[in-house]
C-alpha cells in the first residue's frame, strides 16, 4: 500500500472501487456468473476480430496520403465525440454522487488530491471502454500491416484524456451558467446531443448531397479531400499517430495530457465546492408548482400506466437517451422527405433504420420501466393480480413506441404501403423482443440507483442490440424478397433464444 493521504494512495482506493464496480456490472452482482461473463466477452472479442478483418483488413498497408488521413481523422473524430459524450455522463455522476463525498470533505485529507485523482479516473474507464471495441481493429491492422499500428493504442489513451478534459470543462461551464439544479439535466442532454449531432450532421449532409445514408460518404468524398488542409498540418497529427508516426504520437500524447493536467489544476480545488452545491440542489423542491391534480377516474391498469408515463417523462437520463435516439431518426426522416417525390429505392434504406430504432428505444424504455420500481412493496400489496403490474409497464412502453413511430409509418404508407407494412411488422417484433429481453433480465432497483450503479446486465444489453440489428436486417431483406428474409430472421430468433437461455429468470416449465 502507498503512504496514506498521498495521491497514489487515493488512486489505489479509486481503482479498487472502479474495479469492483466493473465486476459488479459484468456479473450483475453475482460472483458465480463471472466465468459466463468472461466467456461472453471472449466470444465477443473473437467475433469483433472477424468483423474488423472484413472491414479494415485491406487498409493495413495504407500510406499517409490525404484520403487515408481524412478517413482516419473522420473515424477518430466520430469515436472521440462519443467519448466526450460518455465522459460528460461520468462527470455529472461524479459531481452528483453523494455516497462518499461527505466523508471525504469532512476528513482532514486533502480534498484537492482526491478530486484530482477522481477526475483522472474518469479518463481511465473512457479508454477502458473504447479498448475492447477498438482493439480488434487495431489488432487486425497490426497483424496485416506491422507494428507501426501500435500507435493507434496510444491514440486511444490520448483521446480518453482529451475527451475527459473537454467533458469536465464543459460540465463546469454548465455549472456556472445554468446552476447546480439544472446542470444535471442539461449536461445529460448536451452529452446526448454531442454524441449524436456529429453523426447525424454527417448523415443529413450525405443525404442532401448524395441521397445515401452512409455516414462516412461525405468525408470520403473528393470535395472533402480537396478542401482539407495540406499534409503537413497539425490537424493530421492524430491520424499520423495512428499510422505509426512516432513524433506525431508523442506530440498528441503530450498535448492531451497537458490539457487534462490543466483542467485538473483548474477544477480540482473547486470540485468539492461544486459537489457541495449539488446537495442543496437535490434537496430543493422541484415541482410543478401551483397546478392542482384532479383525481380522475381510471382503471387500476390505467393508474399503473399513467404512473409509468409520468416517471418516464421525469427521468432526465431517460429523456436525454430517448432524445438521442430520436435525433438518430432525423436522417431517415430527411431521407423520407427527400425521396418522397423521386419515388423508389430509398425506402429500402428506411426499413432497417426504423426497425432498429424501435428496438433500441423499446429496450431503453422498458429497462427503466420494468426494472426500476421505487416502491415494489406498494404495488405488491395493492389489490391487483401480480401480472397487472408488468403488463401495465409493457403497455406503457409500447404505447410510447406507437406514438413515436406511427407518424413516420403513416407517411411511409402513403409513399409505399408495402414498405410500411414490412416496417410496421419489424417494429412490432423488434420492440416486442427488446421488451421481452429486459423482462427476462429484470432486476429490482430504485430508479435513482440506476445511474449510480449500472444494474443492467451486459448480456441483456448486447442481446438487445444484436436482436434489434437482426430484426432490422430481416425487415430490410423482407422488403426486397420475403423468402430470403428467412435466413436473417433465423439469426435474430437465435439471438433472442440465446438471450432467453442465458437469462437468470426461472423458466416456465
Amino acid at each position, binding site marked *: 500500500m502507498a503512504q496514506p493521504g498521498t495521491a497514489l494512495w487515493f488512486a489505489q482506493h479509486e481503482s479498487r472501487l472502479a474495479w469492483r464496480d466493473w465486476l459488479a456490472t459484468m456479473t450483475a452482482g453475482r460472483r458465480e456468473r463471472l466465468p459466463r461473463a468472461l466467456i461472453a466477452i471472449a466470444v465477443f472479442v473473437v467475433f469483433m476480430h472477424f468483423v474488423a478483418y472484413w472491414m479494415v483488413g485491406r487498409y493495413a498497408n495504407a500510406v499517409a496520403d490525404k484520403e487515408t488521413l481524412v478517413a482516419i481523422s473522420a473515424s477518430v473524430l466520430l469515436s472521440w465525440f462519443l467519448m466526450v459524450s460518455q465522459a460528460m455522463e461520468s462527470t455529472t455522476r461524479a459531481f452528483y454522487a453523494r455516497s462518499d463525498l461527505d466523508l471525504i470533505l469532512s476528513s482532514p485529507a486533502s480534498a484537492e488530491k482526491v478530486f484530482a485523482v477522481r477526475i483522472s479516473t474518469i479518463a481511465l474507464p473512457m479508454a477502458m471502454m473504447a479498448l475492447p471495441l477498438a482493439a480488434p481493429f487495431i489488432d487486425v491492422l497490426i497483424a496485416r500491416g506491422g507494428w507501426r499500428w501500435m500507435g493507434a493504442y496510444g491514440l486511444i489513451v490520448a483521446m480518453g484524456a482529451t475527451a475527459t478534459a473537454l467533458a469536465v470543462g464543459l460540465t463546469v461551464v454548465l455549472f456556472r451558467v445554468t446552476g447546480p439544479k439544472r446542470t444535471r439535466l442539461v449536461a445529460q442532454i448536451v452529452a446526448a446531443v454531442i454524441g449524436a449531432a456529429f453523426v447525424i450532421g454527417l448523415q443529413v449532409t450525405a443525404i442532401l448531397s448524395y441521397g445515401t445514408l452512409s455516414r462516412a460518404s461525405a468525408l470520403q468524398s473528393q470535395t472533402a479531400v480537396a478542401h482539407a488542409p495540406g499534409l503537413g498540418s497539425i490537424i493530421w497529427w492524430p491520424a499520423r499517430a495512428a499510422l505509426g508516426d512516432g513524433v506525431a504520437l508523442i506530440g498528441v500524447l503530450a498535448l492531451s495530457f497537458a490539457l487534462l493536467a490543466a483542467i485538473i489544476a483548474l477544477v480540482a480545488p473547486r470540485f468539492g465546492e461544486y459537489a457541495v452545491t449539488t446537495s442543496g440542489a437535490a434537496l430543493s423542491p422541484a415541482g410543478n408548482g401551483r397546478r392542482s391534480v384532479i383525481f380522475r377516474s381510471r382503471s387500476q391498469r390505467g393508474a399503473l400506466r399513467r404512473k409509468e408515463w409520468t416517471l418516464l417523462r421525469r427521468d432526465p437520463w431517460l429523456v436525454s437517451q430517448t432524445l438521442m435516439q430520436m435525433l438518430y431518426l432525423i436522417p431517415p426522416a430527411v431521407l423520407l422527405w427527400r425521396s418522397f417525390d423521386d419515388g423508389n429505392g430509398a425506402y429500402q434504406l428506411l426499413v432497417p433504420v426504423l426497425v432498429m430504432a424501435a428496438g433500441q428505444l423499446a429496450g431503453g424504455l422498458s429497462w427503466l420501466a420494468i426494472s426500476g420500481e421505487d*416502491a415494489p412493496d406498494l404495488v405488491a400489496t395493492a*389489490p391487483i393480480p401480480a401480472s397487472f403490474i408488468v403488463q401495465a409497464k409493457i403497455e406503457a412502453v409500447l404505447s410510447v413506441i406507437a406514438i413515436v413511430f406511427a407518424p413516420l409509418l403513416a407517411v411511409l404508407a402513403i409513399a409505399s404501403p408495402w414498405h410500411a407494412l414490412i416496417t410496421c411488422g419489424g417494429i412490432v417484433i423488434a420492440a416486442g423482443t427488446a421488451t421481452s429481453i429486459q423482462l427476462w433480465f429484470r432486476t429490482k432497483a430504485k430508479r435513482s440507483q440506476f445511474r449510480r450503479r449500472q444494474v443492467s446486465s451486459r448480456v441483456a444489453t448486447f442481446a438487445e442490440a444484436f436482436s434489434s440489428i437482426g430484426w432490422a436486417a430481416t425487415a430490410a431483406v423482407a422488403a426486397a424478397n420475403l423468402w430470403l428474409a428467412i435466413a436473417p430472421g433465423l439469426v435474430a430468433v437465435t439471438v433472442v433464444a440465446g438471450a432467453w437461455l442465458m437469462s437468470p429468470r426461472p423458466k416456465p416449465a
Partner: protein
Amino acid sequence: MQNFASLAPDLFALEISGLVKRFDRLAVDHLDLTVRAGEFYALLGPNGAGKTTTLRMIAGLLRPDAGTIRVAGVDALADPVAAKHVMAWISDEPMIYDKLTPQEYLEFIAGLWDIAPELAAPRAHELLHWLDLLPHAHERCEGFSKGMQQKVALAGALVHEPQVIILDEPLTGLDAGSARQVKNVLRERVRSGGTIIMTTHILEVAERMADRIGVIAHGKLIAEGTLEELRQQAGDKNAGVVGGASLEDTFLALVTEQAEAA
C-alpha cells in the same frame, strides 16, 4: 372517515395459524396469532425474531411455506387480491416515488385500490391537511426529509381506508414532531374502528399505544397480552423491581427466559 361499526364485534381482523417460513434457517416457526377488529396490536421481539417476515407474509409480499392467514375473514392465501383490498402495508423505508408529488402519489394509490375519484379526492385533501403536507402537495418527494416521506406513505396507506393497517417499524428515523403526527393518525384510526398491527423497537410506543402486545422470539409467540398480563408472566423475574416493571424490564425478562429455555 368510514365507520367500521358495521363489522361484527367478534370478527377477527387477523387470524394466523401454523405459519411457517424457512429461509436458510427457520424464520417463522408454527406461529399462531389473532388480532381482534378495532385493536391496536404491537409485535415486539429481538432482532431477527421473525417479526418482519411474519408481517410480510400477512401483507402478501412473501408466500408462507405452511399455515393459514385470514385477514378480516378473507383467506389471504386463497384470494390475495381480496385480502389486499382491505389492507395497507407500511414499511420502515417509505414506499414512495421520488418523481411523483404527494398529490399524484395519492391519486396513483386511489387508482390502484380502485377508489372512486369523488371519494378519493376529498379524502386525500383531508389527509394531506392532517399531516401538514398541504403546502408540499405539489412538490416532488425527492427533496423530502425521511419524516415527510413517511407521512406521504402513511397518507397513501390511509387514502383507501383500509380495515387493517400493518406497519413495520414506522417510526424509524422520524423526528419527534413527525413521530407524534404519525402516532396521532394511528390512534385516530383505531378510534374510528380500524385495526393496527405494528412492530416497533421503541418500547415506550408499544407501552403507551397498544391494546395488546405480542412478543416473538425465534419465530414463535412467546408471550401475549396487555402490559399488565405480560408483567405477570414475567413476574418472578421482576420480583425485585419496585413500583411495577417497565415494559423494557418485562420484555428483556421474557426474551432472556426464552433464550435460557432454548
